[in-house]
């Protein structure tokens, strides 16, 4: 048996799955001040009278990190940057406590200016004085050579052993210094509170005598053992939309191209599944005001939901962006799209006579019948969603390309399916699909698709390997590890073999070794370094991943 629980913005959903079938579901309103209780009460609901030894897996997806950051409840972190030559570091917006240290590493990982240790010591003393317990140290190109970051950490620890220091190269290995700095900062700012939360979950689970492993869902649709997730809890941000997309993957036929439409109260989340693979944001998620390196599905949030206020404007209507409460037909104060759909008998919730009252009132303002105005509301909602979906595909087509083949191969893709999930106004989905000339799908259990997605998601993992044979070193970006390369003539095949070995080790370390076999090479490239007219070495880049996917235990739905 599999258990999935998704703590969403409005509701918390739980499912119990047995042999590929959803056998129980539960739904409670989310109480943001008591997330643990929210998780536990639907869990208790679905495991009642279930033989606990039959539970194989529990997967959680929570808004904890999102809330901590949105509410400013993260721990204070000081940022120490070694930017070297380039942009004026004052032009980065990375918070209030930012210190700049002299020293520099270049793009090949060579030291071009020694670290100013004296300056570092002074800054460390100042920060200790100011009471900082957490410091993030980040060098430009620190992922190509971490020596300065290690040294900075040692100096700070020397000044005050109590201070926790997080190094940029261990938070992210990708190019983009300001994003790496923000990611490092958020990583260390959320660790403590998350650790406490995770401990409470562990306690609650063991009190219930559940022996199954507990996983947490990440923003890239992958699961990670709860214990391992404490390293970098910030990766669990935005797991809700990821859960919905994974749910759609689980509930629709494999290898298709679908738009996931998750209509909530005030917003609709749109995500894309291209040929069966969820589309990942190419640069990283935006968290609050920070651009980061956190891998996340490419999700577009549209300010339109079932509870959006409908207003008369000219001879038409406008929807949203705000919400005044529930729909009029559910006792709310203002007319909403939900009322329009109820009135047109597209959905079956709320009080029909209240819905009629809402539409008649609106119709009076526009000098037309209740039916006409209800159709107008639905039309505007459908048009808005169709336009936003089109723009998402367009944006995907317009992603930059750096190689000839990439420019030549990018074809125009349009969706086969529009899939509606979530609790909201699913009645819109078939209309959106019709307008786009595609198939509209509202899967069975669509309202708990997110919890299903969590329950059946498998682990994901990435590995970014780079070897510089002239310098005789290799680095693994995600771990911040490096090693020696002796063979100057290392070729791409050897590099890929090495990367494959390293991702297996990495998977073992993170407790997801059983999925290491699913790892694929997503990009591999070699550059000859020519100086004068002869080759002095090679740069070999290999990227691997275990992509988002479904566990083999899941046999229901499409696969």
């Amino acid at each position, binding site marked *: 048996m599999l258990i999935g629980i998704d703590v969403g913005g409005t509701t918390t959903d739980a499912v119990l799955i047995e042999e590929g079938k959803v056998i129980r579901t539960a739904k409670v309103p989310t109480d943001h001040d008591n997330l643990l209780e929210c998780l536990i009460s639907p869990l208790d609901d679905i495991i009642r009278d279930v033989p606990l030894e039959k539970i194989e897996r529990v997967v959680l997806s929570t808004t904890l990190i999102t809330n901590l950051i949105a509410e400013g409840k993260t721990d204070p972190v000081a940022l120490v940057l070694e930017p070297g*030559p380039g942009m004026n570091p004052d032009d980065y917006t990375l918070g209030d406590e930012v210190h700049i240290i002299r020293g520099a590493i270049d793009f090949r990982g060579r030291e071009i200016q020694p670290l100013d240790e004296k300056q570092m010591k002074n800054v460390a003393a100042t920060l200790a004085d100011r009471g900082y317990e957490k410091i993030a140290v980040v060098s430009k190109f620190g992922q190509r050579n971490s020596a300065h970051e290690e040294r900075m950490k040692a100096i700070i620890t020397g000044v005050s052993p109590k201070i926790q220091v997080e190094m940029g190269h261990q938070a992210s290995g990708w*190019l983009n210094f300001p994003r790496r700095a923000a990611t490092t900062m958020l990583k260390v700012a959320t660790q403590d509170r998350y650790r406490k939360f995770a401990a409470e979950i562990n306690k609650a689970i063991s009190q219930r005598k559940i022996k199954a492993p507990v996983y947490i869902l990440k923003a890239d649709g992958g699961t990670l053992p709860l214990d391992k997730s404490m390293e970098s809890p910030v990766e669990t941000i935005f797991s809700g939309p990821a859960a919905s997309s994974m749910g759609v993957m689980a509930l629709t036929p494999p290898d298709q191209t679908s738009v996931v439409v998750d209509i909530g109260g005030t917003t609709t989340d749109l995500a894309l599944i291209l040929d069966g693979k969820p589309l990942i944001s190419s640069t990283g998620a935006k968290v609050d005001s920070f651009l980061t390196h956190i891998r996340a599905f490419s999700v577009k949030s549209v300010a339109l939901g079932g509870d959006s206020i409908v207003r008369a404007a000219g001879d038409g209507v406008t929807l949203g962006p705000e919400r005044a409460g529930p729909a009029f037909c559910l006792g709310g104060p203002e007319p909403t799209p939900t009322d329009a759909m109820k009135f047109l008998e597209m959905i079956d919730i709320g009080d029909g006579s209240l819905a009629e009252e809402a539409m008649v009132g609106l119709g009076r303002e526009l000098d037309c019948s209740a039916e006409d105005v209800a159709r107008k509301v639905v039309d505007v909602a459908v048009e808005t969603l169709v336009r936003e979906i089109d723009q998402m595909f367009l944006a995907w087509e317009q992603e930059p390309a750096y*190689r000839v083949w990439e420019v030549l191969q990018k074809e125009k893709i349009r969706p086969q399916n529009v899939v509606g999930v979530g609790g909201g106004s699913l009645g819109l989905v078939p209309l959106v699909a019709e307008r786009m000339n595609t198939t509209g799908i509202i899967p069975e259990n669509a309202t708990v698709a997110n919890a299903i997605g969590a329950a059946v998601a498998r682990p994901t993992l990435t590995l970014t390997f780079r070897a510089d044979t002239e310098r005789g070193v290799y680095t693994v970006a995600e771990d911040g590890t490096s090693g020696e390369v002796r063979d100057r003539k290392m070729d791409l095949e050897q590099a890929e073999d090495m990367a494959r070995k390293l991702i297996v080790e990495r998977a073992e370390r993170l407790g997801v070794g059983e999925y290491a076999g699913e790892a694929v090479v997503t990009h591999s490239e070699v550059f000859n370094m020519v100086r004068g007219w002869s080759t002095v070495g090679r740069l070999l880049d290999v990227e691997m991943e275990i992509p988002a996917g479904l566990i083999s235990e899941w046999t229901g739905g499409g696969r």
Partner: protein
Amino acid sequence: MTGKRMGLIFFPAFDWSISPTHPEREERLLYTRDQIFEEGLMDLPEVEEYKPRLAELKDIARVHLCVPNVEAQVTDAHLIAAGSTLVLADAYMDKKITNAFALVRPPGHHSMRVAHGNRGFCNVNNEAIMVEYIRRKYGIRKVAIVDTDVHHGDGTQEIFYHDPDVLFISFHQDGRTLYPGSGFMDELGGPKAMARTINIPLPPETPDEGIHYVLDELVLPILKEFDPQLVVNSAGQDNHYTDPLANMRFSAQGYARLNEKLSPDIAVLEGGYAIETALPYVNTGIILAMAGLDYSHVREPDFVPGQFQMSRTMKATIEAIVQHQKDAWDRRDELTDTAVSRAGPFYRRKKSIFYDTDMISESQEESVRMCPHCSGYMTISSRASKGYGTSDRVFGVFVPLFACHRCREEAKEEYESRKTDSAFDYIYLQDKTADDYRCYSVHEKNERVY
């Protein structure tokens, strides 16, 4: 926010090279990629990254007479580099961006009107293709192209040599000391476009100070007077003090400041082969300067401010060059009148052109009608020897964008009548007024229309 919104296409063509160890190889913009991505420049609100596209064959034919046809002279990489400039041109003309930088390869400024092969790493001329696309599509007329590459932009010069509406200014290391061995002060343009070509051959080892003197005293004042509707920077980076192919002493700071002062509407990358020691820093500097951001922290690891000083002699030499070209510019109308009256009804000249990369020797005979109403239609007969005794003989007829009726008619007659001339293998018509480009095979007796 600086109020700037700069369009950027970064197309390093990581899968394209002339040959594995050639300076124009896959690795060329690799470290530039590392630096500008690590800086996070693509995330800045002042920078909008665009995706490249392929140029149409017609966009190439609008500028070049490709022998035997466009397809034979371009690879997909060339079409993408040229197409990238067109994407940015559209965004700029539609006012979606305030300025633009096409950080693309392969380069193009050594490609001339007639293209038999690769010259100086170039097959087709990206700037010229972009300028003619913009003039055709958006109806603007006056354009200035400033070539800041260390090599003379001989291809661009030749393409616009007779066009009084295109001001071409190139500063470069003196042609007596560097490829392509041209770009002297007496190359001032065709008779009807005198001093619309301004060459500034600089002594080897000229530092930032020298180039900024030229910029302040000559280039900027001329630009102001010419008052173009579009300013293009043909932005080579091989004036850098570490460039392996040239001997100048320009720095990343110097380049950034140049772009700040010149404030080009669109910059297009040309040469620059110090791929580790210069390009990452120079490109970061240019992007920051064009985005209106502070570039003062951009510095090469080994650069010491003030390390390159100008000698007295060098200073005097540069001042004399500036004075000489200032005079030429001031006397442009008089020079034009004299040259036109000396030429008679048709201006004729002979040229020989060498294609270093492909080892082709071309000899050309050019003739331009000295029309009182327009810049005049032109013909070129060209013969290219490719070794082993093989050669291509072609004849081209060119109608400029703002040609008068009579020039158009005469040009078309000339094209028709040449179709039976067995002295040539191919006959071409490039009619920019009608946006009509044709190629006729004398042997196969068929016509290709772009």
